[in-house]
């Protein structure tokens, strides 16, 4: 670490933390029950697994609608706007710098919680992978109503295949995501932040232009290059 002073900062609001852990729980249950329904193992019994999966899936769908509402009304969606700026610096950091003990090239700030790599990853997950899971899952759940919904041209194996493929995607994301939480300045710094809302971040780091270009009425500070 650098000699820079670390400041305890309130990064994640109560709703964000609640949503994060709710979604963690829902997705975990969905993965566990989903793979049982797919025939990978027997855990709670097929019928129970189906019932739990359906109930939790629908719960997630509704909760996600609230999350989207929150994103839109708070403007937090801007945190997910992808950028290529510093993308390679960040990749370079995770490939090499992290082993040398270099500081993170794009440290967290309240107004820019996600580095460019996170932006692209979370955007792909939240705007692409998860909606695919939700839509394919909802259709799967409604299989018996397809004719009534005018969707009888759909094919169950195709919907199922997409849903299973998506599940592998989510599981793979989960593995990477959990690992990445250990890459803070201490092993549990990121997890602590997601529980308490507070994380120690480098003092005096200013937002760069690209990180806040969507924000109006805010002065751009002097870009400060992270010290090597």
């Amino acid at each position, binding site marked *: 670490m650098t000699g820079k002073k670390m400041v305890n900062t309130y990064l994640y609001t109560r709703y964000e933390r609640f949503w994060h852990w709710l979604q963690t729980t829902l997705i975990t249950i969905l993965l566990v029950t989903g793979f049982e329904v797919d*025939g990978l193992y027997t855990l709670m019994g097929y019928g129970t697994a189906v019932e739990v999966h359906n109930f939790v899936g629908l719960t997630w769908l509704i909760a996600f609608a609230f999350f989207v509402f929150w994103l839109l009304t708070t403007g937090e969606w801007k945190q997910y706007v992808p950028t290529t700026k510093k993308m390679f610096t960040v990749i370079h950091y995770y490939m090499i710098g992290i082993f040398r003990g270099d500081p993170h090239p794009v440290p967290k700030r309240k107004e820019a919680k996600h580095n460019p790599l996170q932006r692209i990853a979370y955007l792909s997950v939240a705007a692409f992978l998860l909606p695919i899971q939700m839509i394919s899952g909802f259709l799967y759940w409604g299989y018996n109503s397809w004719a009534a919904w005018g969707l009888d041209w759909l094919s169950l194996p195709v919907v*199922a295949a997409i849903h299973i*493929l998506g599940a*592998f995607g989510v599981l793979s994301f989960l593995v990477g995501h959990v690992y990445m939480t250990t890459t803070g300045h201490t092993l549990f710094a990121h997890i602590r932040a997601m529980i308490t809302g507070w994380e120690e971040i480098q003092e005096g780091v200013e937002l760069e232009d690209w990180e806040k270009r969507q924000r109006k009425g805010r002065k751009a500070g002097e870009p400060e290059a992270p010290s090597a």
Partner: protein
Amino acid sequence: MNIQSNEARCTSCHAGYGWKDAKKFDFTDPTRVDCLVCHEQTGTYKKFPAGAGNPVKETKVFKGNKKTYHPPEWNKVAQSVARPGRKNCGSCHFFGGGGDGVKHGDLDSSLMKPSKTLDVHMGVDGQNFDCVRCHSTTLHHIAGRVYTTPASKHRKSLIEDDLASKITCESCHSSTPHKSHNKANDHTDKVACQSCHIPEYARVQPTKMWWDWSTAGKKKNGKPYQEKGELGKPVYDTKKGDFVWEKNVKPEYFWFNGSLQQLTVKDTIDPSKPVRINWPVGSREDEHSRIFPFKVHRGKQPYDKVNKTLTILHLFPKGKDDKDAYWKGYDWNKAIAYGQDYAGLPYSGEYDFVETSYVYPTTHMVAPKDNVVACIECHSADGRLASLAGFYMPGRDDFKAINVFGWILVLGTLVGVTFHGLGRAISRGRKED
């Protein structure tokens, strides 16, 4: 097997007074219908097994079962007539094929006084339904027969039409009989109630699963004999060959729209593989078809090697000197020649045995709801529906390519982060040194 040329024996159930000869019997004559066998309640009215549908005129012993048959006391018997009970129906339907549980796996004498666990409707400790509670009749037209053709096209409840000729489970239970939002209600469009609610048939008494005529004719000390097996049932009979009996049998499942297609003795067969004597009609695409449970009775029986047809067998002797009858002369060639000639069909003179199968829809012995077939028994790769191809079923079918790709993705990520983590641990260790 055939009734023709064996009428005197078969017609103790295949009804009609004096049906000795199919060629001369008048099926339109209502006086030939035996009212008593269905309606008398004394329990003393018995047809002589080989009496062409007639009871005996004087006391007589039937060699086949060594039972004594007395002439009915006609006055008592006639005065006892009433609504048919289980005994009336069961005296034929429980003993089809010449013995208890030979033909049907879901109909045998255990249904005379069943417990609720054997049949939730008929259980004497439960609803105590008799047969005609479901098989209701209008002017002697009996509802709920499986073999009607064409099969009922529509799922009717009795509330809509209490004269529906085809009574099914849904007639009383509707097509959404489970609690609302229960996934089982979503199954009733494709899965018959019986498929889940009759987990096994022959749960009290064994039923015959295999009948190999090709081994018939063996004798002990020059005499025909019978051998009993573990389940107390004959496993060999000189007259009939080898049998296999089973208890608690899981049904086999096929798409079924209510119709069964029959092979006739005039149809050409392919003896290189098992021949289906009948089979359920239906398909995944047919909206009237459901997945339905069947007992499949298999066996071996003679066929004409040259003409490639099944054959009419003359089994039951018409008299003491009828050496053509197999059960007298034990000569298949003669028995086939006689049977084919009797039916007016050609016979090449050469026979062999072919494996055959015959399906019986399984619809009785409905278990209480706690004993239904569990989801996983079908929704698994080697489950009950493993051989029912042509559609995707969660838990049973998988997508190989997706699974391979998916696990490479997940395990690849895992391996990646593991090495990344190890790298961090090592590099940090070095710095601290």
